[in-house]
């Protein structure tokens, strides 16, 4: 899917600039089309959370980041305040990741929610611009700039309440698939909370076998 965007976005190719690479041409013939990626510039994207205090910890999750490293650091910072009462500890953390790191970013946020509990969440999605400069290895000796867009995610976890009306808000402890002692309905957002409740009932009625047919009576039982 990235490829299709890639193709669409490739229109923004500036005039080919001839570069000085007389000795290079035969080095990287193995590449398809004889192009070699020279550099990669991430465009500065706007912060998806306006009005966020300056001292917020931002965890930039990359494809190769190790979850234990990320979590070791972030958890220590978020749990810090318990020891040090004089200094106001960290109350918010933002996890951001793009492209193939998106899944890992969500996993980090999910782990933190599970471990700490009582965290308010705000999730934002946006495209992130990426500029890649490719250098031709053939006789043309030209440079091509490719503009790509990558889907990216930003997840804000906060110990303090966030605006529940903002799209992408998730109250604490509303894990969709997690076991809960059903019954408590905060009824905040119509359809969304309905599916949450259905899920809880499903979890309690369906034992280990996953069965599509069981969802019908379970639905009625709740309503």
């Amino acid at each position, binding site marked *: *899917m990235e490829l299709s965007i890639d193709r669409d976005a490739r229109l923004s190719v500036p005039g080919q600039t001839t570069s000085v690479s007389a000795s290079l041409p035969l080095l990287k013939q193995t590449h398809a089309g004889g192009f070699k990626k020279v550099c990669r510039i991430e465009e500065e994207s706007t912060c998806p959370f306006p009005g966020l205090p300056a001292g917020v910890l931002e965890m930039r999750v990359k494809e190769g980041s190790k979850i234990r490293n990320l979590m070791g650091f972030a958890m220590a910072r978020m749990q810090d305040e318990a020891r040090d009462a004089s200094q106001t500890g960290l109350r918010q953390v933002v996890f951001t990741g793009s492209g193939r790191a998106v899944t890992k970013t*969500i996993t980090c946020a999910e782990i933190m929610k599970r471990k700490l509990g009582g965290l308010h969440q705000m*999730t934002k*999605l946006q495209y992130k611009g990426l500029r890649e400069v490719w250098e031709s290895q053939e006789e043309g000796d030209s440079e091509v700039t490719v503009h790509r867009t990558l889907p990216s995610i930003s997840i804000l976890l906060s110990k303090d309440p966030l605006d529940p009306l903002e799209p*992408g808000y998730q109250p604490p402890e509303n*894990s969709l*698939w997690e076991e809960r002692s059903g019954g408590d309905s905060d009824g905040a957002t119509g359809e969304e909370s309905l599916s949450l409740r*259905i899920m809880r009932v499903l979890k309690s009625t369906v034992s280990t076998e996953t069965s599509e047919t069981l969802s019908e009576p379970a639905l009625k039982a709740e309503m």
Partner: protein
Amino acid sequence: MAEPRSPVSASVPHNPMVLPTPEGSTLEMDPVEYTLRKRLPRKLPKRRNDVYVNMKTDFKAQLARCQKLLDAHREICIHGLGLAINRAINIALQLQTSSQGALQLAANTSTVELIDDLEPEDPDEAGEPLTRTRNNSAIHIKVFYPKL
């Protein structure tokens, strides 16, 4: 979706130390081959405007389907699990882009518990069928036209 289990042709080299052996201790010498079967994830009850994104169907087809549902219902919910999270986000963002910013996105994340079955390759050999649970991340994106 009639098939409750999707077999994966992967054999797991089993650690003999953990293997429950009913009789005889010589069994510990040869590792029993297991077949890993991944059960399908539990799903939310499907409303008309729910879309579960996967990695098998063509991207464009799924995007078109979402667009069609969106036109009919004014609001859809796109679900993606694991690797399909990326695709779910991509679909949602593409819908938003093609609507010239008229659409809003509201994303929620969750953890889904998945169950794997480990079945011994050779039923004659000692080796109990085992199950393993693991977690995977999921995303649920509500795509909607904001009410004015």
